[in-house]
């Protein structure tokens, strides 16, 4: 796409995108005249009564709008499932070595740093109701920490250290656990999120979400490490 010679098709596309943008910008400005509402006021009031949950954003996506989180977990599982099925059908490259980088400095520093990153991911996952973080960020950070370990010792040995076969079978049980918690809170007449029992339920839900995302993200990374450079 050269600036000096724009073909007819490119001018056409540019014109349509510019019109679309102008429409949206006009919509924003006209909305301002009637006043942009703060839409989360209702949730702030409801969550003010529950002293267990201090992070209002977690209160929304972890309690009142849990369907969103549930289906987000399902979409993530579908992506991981697609990659698992594809990796069973393909053989890896002939000349791929199991070490990503061969250097002593990287080996030593990676073996030292990976527990810190893993711990950070774990902390972010279980303290979702007290501060920023949440299960998704925590799980992904833990998966990245394991990738750092894979740089140091080779991606194939991670399977033995982390009981990979066992965890793959357990992955869908975690989803059932999360579904059970949702079912309890929807069906039982009592509110399970208040009081001391509430904190325990919240922490179990957080950790199971974090564990599921961690297993899924390590699966994806392992696949891309095995088939690196194939594009």
């Amino acid at each position, binding site marked *: *796409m050269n600036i000096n010679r724009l073909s007819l098709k490119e001018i056409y596309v540019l014109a349509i995108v510019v019109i679309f943008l102008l429409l949206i910008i006009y919509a924003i400005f006209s909305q301002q005249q009637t006043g942009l509402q703060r839409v989360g006021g209702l949730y702030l009031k409801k969550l003010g009564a529950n002293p267990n949950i201090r992070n209002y954003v977690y209160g929304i996506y972890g309690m009142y709008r849990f369907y969103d989180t549930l289906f987000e977990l399902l979409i993530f599982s579908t992506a991981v499932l697609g990659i698992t099925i594809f990796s069973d059908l393909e053989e890896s490259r002939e000349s791929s070595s199991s070490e990503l980088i061969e250097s002593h400095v990287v080996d030593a520093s990676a073996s030292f740093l990976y527990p810190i990153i893993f711990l950070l991911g774990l902390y972010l996952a279980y303290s979702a109701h007290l501060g920023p973080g949440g299960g998704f*960020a925590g799980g992904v950070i833990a998966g990245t920490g394991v990738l750092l370990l894979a740089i140091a010792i080779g991606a194939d040995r991670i399977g033995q250290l982390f009981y990979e076969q066992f965890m793959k079978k357990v992955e869908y049980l975690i989803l059932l656990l999360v579904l059970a918690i949702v079912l309890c809170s929807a069906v039982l007449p009592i509110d399970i999120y208040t009081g001391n029992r509430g904190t325990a339920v919240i922490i179990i839900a957080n950790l199971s979400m974090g564990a599921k995302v961690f297993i899924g993200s390590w699966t994806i990374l392992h696949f*891309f490490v095995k088939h690196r450079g194939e594009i």
Partner: protein
Amino acid sequence: MILFFLFLLLVLAGAVLIQKRLLNAVILLGVFSLTSSMIYFLVGAPDVAVTEGAIGVAFVTFIYVLALSDQGKLHVVTEEIPPFFYQDKGRIQGIEYEILQQLADQLSLDLEVEFVKHSDLPSQISSRRTEIIAGAFYKEYLPASGLNITLPFHQASLAKIVDTQIENAPIGTLTDLDVTDIKEIDAERISRFNALEDLMSAYNKEKISGFISDSARMSIALNQITTQKRKTSEISQVSDINYTFAIPSSEVELTDKLNELLENLTKTGQLEKILDRYLR
């Protein structure tokens, strides 16, 4: 403060769309996500900032870089033959290296050279990663392998060396060499060898009465003949050949670009200068 980051977003988005090399664009996308995460922090959304930082900056960049690690390279497979393509104290030099380096700069790629032996060449041709075959290559060297031959960059000759004192022994060549057009050889009395060193040791031990090879490999071989053999050996020219490059036939664009570059170099006289520097 926010305005500065927002304008930085605009600049980065524009920069991603102009890039030619994919790795540069991926790193710029990582910086884009990082700036976005910074804006989330300034506006009072720390949850979103942490999640965008973990997923958009770390994970997406890792996956792209792992998948694209082979992308910006031009793979060259060659034998080590001075003065065409050789290694000198760890640095690669040679006539063909300079030509291919110019091609890589033109296409904004990195040159990656792999030195192999003659017996490994057929398997490297069928591997998907090889893009150019170099190393004093000529059309008769590996005939009928599904390769496109480019324009020649140097003319040479096929030479034959014969020890006049040995009789009734076959003539040796390297495997796959096409000798059907050469009249002076009896086609049934040829023995094939896998490597130049095997050819040399067979000649020195008098198992063959002579061998045929192109002039570049012949000059390497001449250094290894024993002096008493050298007195009784006779070198004669058999036919003319052209040194070219070879590209697998599926890469039509690359063949066209390399031909274009070779034509350009011949027209402007740069090819002569490169050949002068190495061959004289």
